[in-house]
Structures are given as structure tokens and as C-alpha cells.
């Protein structure tokens, strides 16, 4: 009797298909993506770099959303450890995965940008290095998950990596300040709140940031759901 009620409650807590909000985020994000790209192409060229600077509208939101995603992973990992509810772990997992995608986007666009401006795709410069390490942490996060069979230990271990690994986010962000080198310092400095950027460029950038955020939210909700379904299959 109790078992039946419990199953019902679990079902209610874990729907089989994405809810309306998820679809709204995803739909709106995908719809606005071309608008953002149009704004990016219409934005005024940079004084030094000309039209090349337009990569920025993918590069910077990608990197920031990566940071945000890892922050969410950090947060939900903490929540998981304190509440021991697998739902938090699934959000952490989803966010880490989407974060890897966004960070990957920032890395790729950065490399594409680096080639014409610095002459190489890659150098061992602090920002690039710390970003690569950040990327590696979350690759490790998934390798660890793959290595542990026991679901509970897997969640705990992953949560620990999600928490400890987050320290690389501030390191990556601040690396341009700590080690002044090739990569450009912040135009929108989140630590001091100062903004050095042309308003038109800023508008386009912020719009793209908004679109990316919508996409992020949609994807995380979607991926958490998939994880829930996977979990249920594992348990069945």
C-alpha cells in the first residue's frame, strides 16, 4: 500500500516529458538566436580589429554561460551533499554537461579568433591555459561518473568534484589580471563593475547573452529530465 503511494509520488515528481517552461525556454532561445546573430553582424566594427571582433558575440557569452553553468553545478552539488536528493545531482550533472558545451564553444571560437590576431591557434598563455584546465576538470567529472557503479557513491564523488573543481572558474576569470599577457582583460569587469565598451556593441553582446541564457535554461531542464529517465531505467 505504502509502496504504491510512493511510486505515485515519484511519478508525479518525475514527469515523462518536458514541461511547458522547458519548451518556452528552448523555443524562445532558438527563435531569438538568428536575431542575436543578426545584431552581432550589424554591430559596429571594432577600432582595432575590424569585423573580426564579431566572433566576440559568440565567444564571450559562451565563456560566461560556461562559468554560470559550472557555478550552478557547484551550487547543486552542495545542495545534493546536504539534502541527499538525487534530483539535485541530476541538475548538477545536466549543468556540467551544458557547461562543457558552452565552454567548448568559447574555446573553439577563441582559437578561431586567435589564429588571425595572434598568428597561432594556441599558446600557453595563462587565460588559455586556465580555461583549458577548467575544461579538463569537467571532463574528469564525467570520467569519474563513468568509473563508479554504485549510484550513491557516484553522486557523492561527482558532487565533490563539482565543488572542488569550481575553484578553477575564478582562477580562469581572474587569470588575465594576475598574469598580464596576450589575452585581453575584462571590458565588463564583474569584480569592479566597470564597463569599457561601445554601447552598440554592448547592446548586441547583452542580447546574445540573454539568448544564450534562455538556451542554457532550456537545455538544463531538458537534460535533467533525461537524467531522471536514465536513473529510473537503472533502478527498474
Amino acid at each position, binding site marked *: 500500500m505504502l509502496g504504491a503511494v510512493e511510486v505515485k509520488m515519484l511519478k508525479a515528481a518525475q514527469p515523462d516529458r518536458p514541461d511547458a517552461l522547458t519548451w518556452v525556454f528552448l523555443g524562445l532561445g532558438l527563435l531569438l538566436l538568428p536575431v542575436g546573430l543578426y545584431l552581432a553582424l550589424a554591430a559596429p566594427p571594432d577600432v582595432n580589429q575590424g569585423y573580426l571582433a564579431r566572433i566576440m558575440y559568440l565567444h564571450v557569452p559562451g565563456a560566461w554561460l560556461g562559468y554560470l553553468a559550472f557555478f550552478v553545478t557547484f551550487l547543486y552539488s552542495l545542495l545534493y551533499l546536504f539534502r541527499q536528493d538525487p534530483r539535485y545531482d541530476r541538475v548538477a550533472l545536466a549543468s556540467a554537461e551544458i557547461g562543457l558545451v558552452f565552454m567548448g564553444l568559447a574555446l573553439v571560437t577563441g582559437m578561431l579568433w586567435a589564429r588571425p590576431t595572434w598568428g597561432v591557434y594556441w599558446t600557453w598563455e595563462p587565460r588559455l591555459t586556465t580555461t583549458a584546465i577548467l575544461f579538463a576538470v569537467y571532463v574528469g567529472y564525467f570520467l569519474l561518473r563513468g568509473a563508479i557503479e554504485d549510484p*550513491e557513491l557516484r553522486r557523492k564523488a561527482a558532487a565533490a568534484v563539482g565543488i572542488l573543481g569550481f575553484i578553477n572558474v575564478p582562477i580562469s576569470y581572474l587569470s588575465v589580471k594576475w598574469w598580464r599577457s596576450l589575452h585581453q582583460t575584462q571590458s565588463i569587469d564583474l569584480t569592479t563593475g566597470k564597463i569599457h565598451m561601445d554601447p552598440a556593441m554592448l547592446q548586441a553582446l547583452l542580447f546574445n547573452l540573454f539568448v544564450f541564457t534562455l538556451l542554457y535554461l532550456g537545455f538544463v531542464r531538458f537534460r535533467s529530465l533525461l537524467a531522471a529517465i536514465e536513473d529510473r531505467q537503472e*533502478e*527498474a
Partner: protein
Amino acid sequence: MLLRLQAISKRFGRDWVVRDLSFTLQRGEVVALLGPNGSGKTTLLRLMAGLLKPTRGKVERLGQALFLANPPAFHRRLTAREHLLYDLAFHGKRGDWEGALVRFGLPEDLPLLAFSSGMRKRLALARLTLLQPDIWLLDEPETALDREGRGLLLATLAEARKGAGIVLATHDRHLVEEVADRALELGAA
């Protein structure tokens, strides 16, 4: 009440090993855990100790629980004396380790890697008598012991039950008859 399991279940992968089991252990009780090979005795003991977590249900412990694995685990580079002293220290206890070693017929200064299986079992019993847990969880405690060792085990259990609760998993029906107040029989795997 020393230990209470409330409708606990444990699953490994897809197999349920323990299902909806409830159980209470009182001080002064000796409970035998019976069942064929693979029925979940060891798993249940580890759940009681808190070394495993139940998939469902709750385990409450109102006292210090210690688990005697089979075969017992020791650092082989330490002597019996050293091992007992460290164990006492880690548990913040004091006790007559020398008397215990004499009683269980164990050499003091031999590294444990030179101990035979029966000597290791005796040392594990000596360790428990010194640490005096409230809940004794013993997995096949009678194996590896010779006749004298079995006598020591029986004496130890008789003494321990005065202040503690004991759960022991075993296949030895004679032992059950000799020491257990009641039995918990687990089904086949």
C-alpha cells in the same frame, strides 16, 4: 532498544537482497542470523553497522556498533599489542590489553602477518572485548577457531551480553542453540 531497522530494503544493481525487513535489538539479547548461502546475512550486518546504506528504510543505532568481518582485518605489520593499543586510542578507551592477550592465548610481539587464521579470529575477539561496543555484529565468528577458541568465544559472548546486544550470522546450528535467544531467518537468495 539498541538498534532498530525500519522496513529496510537493499538493492545491488537490480537484485533486492534485503526486502522490507524490520527488526529491533535489545540490550542483553543474542540474535542469530540464519539463512542459506547468499541470503544476505553479511549484507544485513553491514547495514546494521552503517557500513552500507539501505536503499529504502531507516537504520537507528543508539550506541556504538562494531562489526567483526570474516576473515577479520588487521594491519599485518603491527604486533597484537600495538594493534590493540592503537585501536583503544582511536576509540578513546582504555583497557587491560595485556590481560586480553593472555586470556586469548596470543603472543604479544609477533607481527600479525605471522598469525594463523584462528589467531586472527582470537585477536578480533580480544579487540571487541576491549572496545566494549554496545552492538556486536559478528559474521561467522565460530569459523577458524579450534575447540579452545570456541570455548573462549562462548565465554566472551556470555560476558558481552550482560551489557550489550549481539547479532551473529552463522551456519552452525550448534552455536545457535548454545548462545542465541532467538533467530532471524533470511530466505534464499
